[in-house]
């Protein structure tokens, strides 16, 4: 079965109906392993138990970026191949990506309160994640503003690709801006010198988050396809009521 066969929504729905329970079970299993490992992981000698926020915070940040990459690939599918499923994939990924980004921001500021003494600092990383979150909201707003699904998909696809080019530039600019204003004081994980006792649970949690994203994404795509079917049926019904 190739990618083009999935353009048939019925086939996609049938396939995902079979795959989703397995994916959901794998997600639960990965979270069970991940959370138990996080529970057993040692506290940081400086940060104490708050370091465990990292096991949610860092995977959420990765997934926030990963969702934009998924949207960009889907945007190419929309603009280049006119793949109908790409529209659905892009639309379904946006709110999930925004949710992960928001989770990253919220856990980050909860972590910052005990560590830095404030919920928010204009640190380069925080700021660029905030801008990413704003761009997610912009894409969602664009999706919701245009009524016609196909036109909304193409317009949002262009914005997604422009964002994909701009996000690294924004990240780089914010880094420059921050180092200009308050050098040193920037929070670091200490490069790659993370102890395996911390690194292994982190990787397991990242896998669990990725599985969670895939599960939610496929479920949201199914919902979107069904929502479009309902929309078409209602329009047909309205057309029939109006008479020929």
């Amino acid at each position: 079965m190739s990618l083009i066969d999935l353009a048939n929504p019925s086939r996609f729905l049938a396939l995902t109906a079979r795959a989703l329970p397995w994916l959901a079970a794998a997600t639960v299993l990965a979270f069970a392993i991940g959370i138990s490992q996080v529970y057993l992981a040692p506290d940081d000698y400086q940060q104490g138990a708050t370091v465990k926020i990292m096991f949610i915070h860092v995977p959420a940040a990765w997934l926030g970026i990963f969702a934009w990459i998924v949207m960009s690939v889907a945007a190419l599918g929309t603009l280049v191949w006119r793949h109908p499923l790409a529209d659905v994939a892009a639309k379904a990924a946006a709110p999930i990506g925004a949710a992960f980004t928001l989770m990253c921001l919220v856990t980050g500021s909860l972590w910052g309160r005990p560590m830095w003494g404030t919920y928010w600092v204009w640190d380069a990383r925080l700021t660029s994640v905030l801008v990413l979150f704003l761009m997610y909201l912009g894409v969602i707003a664009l999706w919701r503003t245009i009524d016609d699904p196909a036109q909304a998909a193409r317009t949002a696809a262009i914005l997604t690709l422009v964002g994909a080019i701009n996000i690294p530039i924004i990240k780089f600019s914010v880094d420059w801006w921050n180092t200009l204003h308050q050098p040193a004081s920037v929070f670091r994980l200490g490069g790659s010198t993370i102890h395996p006792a911390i690194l292994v649970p982190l990787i397991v949690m990242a896998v669990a988050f990725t599985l969670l994203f895939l599960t939610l994404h496929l479920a949201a795509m199914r919902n979107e396809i069904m929502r479009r079917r309902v929309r078409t049926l209602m329009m047909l019904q309205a057309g029939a009521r109006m008479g020929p």
Partner: protein
Amino acid sequence: MTALCALLVRDLRLAVRVGGGALTGVLFFLIVVTLMPFAIGPDLALLARMGPAILWLGALLASLLALDRLLAMDHEDGSLDLILTAPVPLELAVVVKAFAHWLTTGLPLVISSPLLGLLLNLEAKASGAVALTLLAGTPALTFIGLIGAALTVALRRGGLLLAVLVLPLTVPVLIFGVAASNAAITGPVPFGAPFGILCALTLISLVIGPLAAAVALRQGLE
């Protein structure tokens, strides 16, 4: 080439004669700068320190507000459809339109900025630095805004959405515009480094803006 020149002359003429274009933007800029001391107090030293940031924010907002007339009026009277079907490449046509828009809205902001710098207690050198960075940076604002204008041109309630889509993309321009101005005034960073990056950002937006806008307009036509 003659078609593009004709388009440029037409847009300039429309901007000057229909009225409300260039001077309203400058007026808005003036009002924003006037409001600032009311909000942060009449302390001249503080105003001088914040001057470049205030001028940049004012110019950013003024050029943002002017964006809805970049393509919307042509969409309303149907001339945008003519431009779309013309043999001239759409990418070049939107470059010319954005350039004309910058000449009539961006350039007046640049020219008026030294005058507004006086209100903010900026020295001549500082005002010159801000004007120079605005000259290098406002084209980037126009060409980034061009993308937003093309994406929202067919929407009836696109005004606020346009701002929401465009403003996050202007973060780098704002950062390097203000950084270059401050570098020229107080240092310690040499002026050339942020200013060079600001010019690079303008050149990048000069490429990405028209390409994305042309794709958006073609998609919107279908």
